[in-house]
């Protein structure tokens, strides 16, 4: 891996420098700091040996299961082969931030297309070139809303993912922001009554997820948006982009900010990361100036002859604005955004609609079948849900999941103490189903669950 590490090359280069020993390269370092020997991180291993150790000690101790029904914000989606193939091109994955646009048109245009495709899907005007993940996008959305409105209170649905809540808290804590949670109604949707009693002129942002942590689609985004806008608060909506093949996008229902997890669009679970933080806003000049993250725009060559792409509004960013920057983000999730661009380009309107529909069908079917079982029922059975299904059991979920695992199924995510607001008496696990599951898979899950009863 190190072409010049051969002794004779080192000697030759040292000779050019008038040095005898590589240690002299560190003559400016207080000599007491220099270590006698390299750190003990083990001996160098050959490629074949590393492969072997990985197979035996790492892969050998990871479960082998093909049917994944675990929910909680990340799910097993189908990744088209084309996405893997194209995103493994070294020009995409080994390059860095396109600071030199003339040799980086490929990444720039791919990211511009990501911004454009995502804007269409979300019904929004402006999408940045990616943030780290859904949760940090929420953190940035919170800080953005505070900058824009100069208010310092954020109102949230209590049904948002608890980990996202934690991240938001971390991000706004230094600002002393007040966070207010709004309960849900009997359908699992945000309680409008409670919301209207809380939203006033001190609120910077109202945040709601659709589908929410329980997979419930909010059917009253337009009413929520009205409530916010009457008081000058921004509405931020968190989405699962794959639901938007069928569901009207939040941009068309009054959202000022849309965030979401783009991992579902051609990304893998990877034990939780890397992921793709989606961040979109409406096109208001003052807001664009306050956006976090990179933006790619169309420009032209100096001679005016060609259309090209470059990073724009860099004056918002840390490398220029330093402590006045809109965010500290530098390295982002570009490759994941490029994957999402390839995914959306390949699927097109028909492909996206089909994936959305399939997940809806699977969710509806699974919910129905679970509710027919004697010892399980779902939370909010009558509501419209997508992908995630909270299931109540009268037995211990640890045991149920163990049994399911013996059947080759990775079961629900046990909410337990992670979501203390929920009645602790109820034993709830979050299941999810995606387009990878066939009806046979769902029937097999149901049959296995029946055996528990």
């Amino acid at each position, binding site marked *: 891996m*190190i*072409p*010049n590490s051969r002794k004779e*090359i080192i000697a030759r*280069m040292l000779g*050019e420098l008038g040095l005898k020993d590589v240690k002299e*390269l*560190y003559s*400016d370092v207080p000599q007491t*700091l220099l270590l006698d*020997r*390299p*750190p003990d991180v*083990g001996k*160098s291993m050959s490629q074949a040996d590393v492969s072997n150790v990985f197979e035996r000690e790492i892969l*050998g101790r*990871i479960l082998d299961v093909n049917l994944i029904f675990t929910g*909680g914000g*990340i799910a*097993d989606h189908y990744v*088209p082969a084309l996405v893997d193939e194209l995103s493994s091109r070294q020009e*995409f*994955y*080994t*390059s860095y931030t396109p600071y030199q*646009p*003339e040799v980086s048109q490929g*990444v720039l*245009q*791919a990211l511009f297309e990501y*911004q454009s495709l995502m*804007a269409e899907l979300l019904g929004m005007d402006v999408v940045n070139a990616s943030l*780290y993940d859904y*949760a940090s996008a929420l*953190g940035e959305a919170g800080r953005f809303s505070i900058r824009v409105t100069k208010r310092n209170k954020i109102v949230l649905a209590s049904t948002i*993912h608890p*980990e996202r809540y934690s*991240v938001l808290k*971390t991000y706004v*804590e*230094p600002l002393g922001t007040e966070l207010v949670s709004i309960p849900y109604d009997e359908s699992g949707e945000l309680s409008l009554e409670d919301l209207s009693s809380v939203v006033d002129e001190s609120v910077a942002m109202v945040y709601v997820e659709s589908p929410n942590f329980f997979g419930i689609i909010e*059917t009253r985004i337009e009413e929520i948006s009205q409530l916010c806008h009457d008081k000058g608060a921004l509405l931020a909506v968190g989405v699962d982009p794959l639901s938007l093949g069928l569901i009207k996008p939040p941009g068309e229902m009054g959202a000022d900010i849309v965030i979401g997890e783009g991992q579902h669009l051609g990304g893998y*679970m*990877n034990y939780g*990361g*890397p992921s793709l933080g989606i961040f979109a806003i409406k096109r208001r000049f003052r807001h664009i100036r306050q956006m976090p993250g990179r933006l790619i725009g169309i420009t*032209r*060559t100096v001679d005016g002859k060609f259309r090209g*792409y470059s990073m*724009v509004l860099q004056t918002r960013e*840390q*490398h220029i604005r330093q402590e006045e920057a809109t965010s500290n983000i530098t*390295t*982002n999730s*570009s490759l994941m955004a490029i994957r999402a661009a390839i995914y959306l*380009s390949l699927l*097109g*309107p028909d492909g996206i609609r089909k994936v959305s529909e*399939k997940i809806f069908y699977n969710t509806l079917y699974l919910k*129905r079948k679970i509710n027919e079982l004697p010892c399980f029922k779902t939370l909010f059975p009558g509501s419209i849900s997508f992908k995630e299904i909270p299931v109540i059991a009268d037995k211990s979920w640890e045991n149920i999941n163990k049994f399911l695992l013996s059947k080759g199924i990775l079961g629900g995510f046990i909410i337990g103490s992670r979501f203390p607001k929920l009645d602790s008496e109820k034993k709830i696990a979050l299941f999810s189903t995606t387009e990878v599951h066939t009806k046979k898979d769902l029937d097999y899950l149901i049959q296995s669950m029946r055996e528990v009863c």
Partner: protein
Amino acid sequence: MRYIQARWEEGDGILEPTVFELGKRGDGGTPIVSIEEELMEEIGNLDEILPEKIVRRSIDLPGLSEPEVARHFSHLAQMNFGVDSGPYWLGSCTMKYTPKLAMRIASVSKIRRLHPYAPEEQVQGILKALYELKEMLSKITGLPYFSLQPAAGAQGELVGALMIRKKFMDLGEKRDEILIPESAHGSNFASAAMAGFKVIRIPPSDEGTVDLNALKAAINERTAGMMITNPNTLGIFESDVLEIADVLHSNGSYLYYDGANLNAIMGWILLSDMGVDIAHLNIHKTFSAPHGGGGPGAGAVGTTEEFRDFLPIPVISRRGDYYFLDYNVPKTIGKVRMFYGNIGVLIKAWVYLKLLGGEGVRSVSTVAVLNANYARKKLIEMGFEVLYGKDRPCKHEFVLSLSEVKKKYGIRALDFAKALIDRGFHPPTIYFPLIVPEAFMMEPTESDSLREIDGYVNAMKEILRRIEENPEEILQAPKNSAIGRIDDVFGNKKLWLTWKIYESEGR
């Protein structure tokens, strides 16, 4: 050397068309799944199940076939320069080669399809790899505790700054100032500000290093800490680091280390010996994970015992041979992203360090520093100027100032950079650090061969000669890239940020 990048030219001033120009919008595309008839029959028509007001009527995405998409993105890839294309001396970014074994291992299906909420006892392998990575990072830095959660270096900085903030809240002290040298990465300033600190700038000494007197003048009872990069962004080792640490510690303040430049000293110096309290390491720089066209990276954060209880949750711990996600971090700053970190990136560092071993780790830094010193010497001999630290060895990078070239011939660092493109070299970082006029920040890394380094410096020399003969030619560069010189101002004026905006305003 000469380099001619692929250029796909559609005509009418358009290179590769966008996907919106290639496919008709609103219908078509490639279904990747099918829905079973049985299921549809059992459930019924979704249009009747979903309330009318939330149903989407149209999706204006373009509809394309698989071969069309394959060619389109292949064309785009061809119009992009990567580390495997050629030398990429983007200073401060450590554009090193990624061993392909790391790519292969990260693509194994069992890793890719691993659900973050899978039961711990079923994922012992991945937890073990992450734990081993943490241990190796500890050995390399001397910092005993690590969080692998931050998604990038800047997020690591934020974590570090938040831990320092929380530490003083815990101590009941009001300390709201962070000291940062003027030559630091912009993200340091931004991260400190995000964590609620007031930023105090420390000017450089004539040597380009931290001015100890300026530091002593700035430090006071409100100083929470200082963020330093060592070697700094000039590629100069902060030889006074022990005094700096002393000044801070005797004031009850902490030393934060920005690991962007760790590639210079890895295996030679422990951060803990330099008095560092908290550090972030850039997994995508020093530890060979690729940069992904801008990300994803990973920013591991290491600390001393003093900050152990403040790390983000969960940390990865072990009991005997059992590895687990440990939420028992009493004073944690909370979480900065979902789940546990960019695992797909981190696993590549595990592979990299296994391949290197201890000797290899040291060899990386040795050769990176040797390459930089060799290139710097050659360039100085050719008449290029180094403003700071010329009489001492540089570390893994160095910064030229092209202000003489600009004065004599009107050629700016930007123009010079563009000329390098035509010769097959990715330009260095330019106009940074800000304290060097017409800065050319060059980082060869250990991945370049002597032939390539000679090629790079000879190209610099040749450009200099061309400038003397015909500066006009350099102003026209690049000529061989996919596109000619880009007009940045125009794009910033127009703000055509999506195809839809461009369609309605730009055409």
